């Protein structure tokens, strides 16, 4: 059967993609950021996942203001990189897994998660930046990837607890697939950052650390954090961290922390990164 073996949580700051694509990865500003993923690159190369379920938010790229799905799943055979206003990133097209994705969609809906099914979609920096950080610049991404977009742009986003439960349902759905597959779930976005208004530039290292500690433990505190607390403590865009609860919920209750990296600043953002494996 297919099995979720680990989660990779990572910020998806667009400037990371721009720095990488423009050959600035060794600049003094960016080098410590990319170096923070040296371990992770080796770890995932050794693990050789067959499939990544990549939880991210579309930043008004594939979905415009006309349609706002709360939870969606990409069932297409491939997903090209989006043009976000300066041309598409020069990264490989994402190869999906339509058969597995369709199974997951069906299983999740019967499990009472009303997924929006996406059969054509461009993927933006929210999905491609984590891949760049974890895999560098291969000719093609090393495994199949199923995108799971979550709305965190327009209030209200799903609650952290709902995201956790989606993770639980994903775990059940994956385990019901007969093929032997090693599956890794990516939770992306965050950590503290605010991109608008007089409070822009907010960083809350203490809160971010508490959140990382909770996910590396039983995650019960993180599950219950209300929307307003994310915004107040970590900035209006810090709410992206609810997506890390999908990936945490998809693991066993007991996990072990494999790697953690935290760096300020990455543009406007506290870059966070946490790898967990089932204990």
């Amino acid at each position, binding site marked *: 059967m297919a099995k979720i073996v680990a989660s990779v949580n990572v910020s998806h700051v*667009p*400037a990371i993609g*721009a720095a990488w694509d423009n050959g600035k990865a060794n600049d003094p500003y960016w080098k410590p950021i990319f170096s923070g993923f040296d371990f992770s690159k080796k770890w995932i190369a050794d693990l050789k996942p067959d499939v990544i379920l990549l939880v991210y938010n579309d*930043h*008004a*790229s594939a979905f*415009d*203001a*006309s349609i*706002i799905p709360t939870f969606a799943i990409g069932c297409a055979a491939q997903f090209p990189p*989006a*043009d*976000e*206003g*300066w*041309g598409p990133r020069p990264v490989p097209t994402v190869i999906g897994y339509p058969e597995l994705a369709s199974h997951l969609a069906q299983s999740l809906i019967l499990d009472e998660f009303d997924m929006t099914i996406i059969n054509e979609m461009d993927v933006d920096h929210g999905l491609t930046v984590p891949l760049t950080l974890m895999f560098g610049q291969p000719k093609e991404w090393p495994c199949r990837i199923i995108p799971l977009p979550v709305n965190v*742009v*327009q*209030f*209200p986003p799903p609650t952290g607890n709902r995201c956790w439960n989606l993770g639980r349902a994903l775990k059940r759905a994956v385990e019901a697939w007969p093929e032997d597959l090693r599956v890794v779930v990516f939770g992306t976005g965050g950590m*503290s950052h*605010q*991109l*608008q*208004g*007089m*409070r*822009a*530039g*907010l*960083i*809350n*290292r*203490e*809160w971010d650390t508490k959140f990382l500690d909770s996910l590396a433990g039983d995650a019960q505190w993180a599950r219950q954090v209300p*929307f*307003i607390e994310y*915004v*107040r*403590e970590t*900035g*209006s*865009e810090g709410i992206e961290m609810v997506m890390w609860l999908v990936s945490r919920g998809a693991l066993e209750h007991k996990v072990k922390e494999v790697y953690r990296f935290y760096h*300020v*600043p990455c*543009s*406007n953002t*506290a870059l966070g990164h946490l790898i967990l494996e089932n204990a």
Partner: protein
Amino acid sequence: MSNDTVRREPIEGFDDIPGTTLFDAQRARQGYYVNQFCMSLMKAENRAEFKADERKYLEKWPMTEEQREAILKRDWQRMIDLGGNIYYLSKLFSTDGKSFQYVAATMTGLTQEQYAEMMLNGGRTIENNRSKADWARTGGPAFGKNAPAFGKK
């Protein structure tokens, strides 16, 4: 009842976070064409048409004159006040060749250099930036130990 009446479910703290505009369905409705205009800039041919004559391009969108003015002036805070959302607006500032950090800095009252310095120092502190009561007491946004070197440039 006016069409502009905004009724939200009461959410504790929703309007209490200082210097922060939460983008909800009511604001999305107000800013719908601002945001959809921004989305149109994801196509290279539309970017070219917009750059050739910004006002003419904006006239095609049924937004308010106030919204058009804010866009023409690149008044990012005003665009947000009028229903724009930063992720949509990113298509506009990407078209201009500007970054999230540039745009965020313009909304803070800091110069871009000061803002970048604050970020290098660890970012804006959370202390005294949690609530409107904090700002009423202290007189405005706090920087804490990460403050940029004001006036030293």
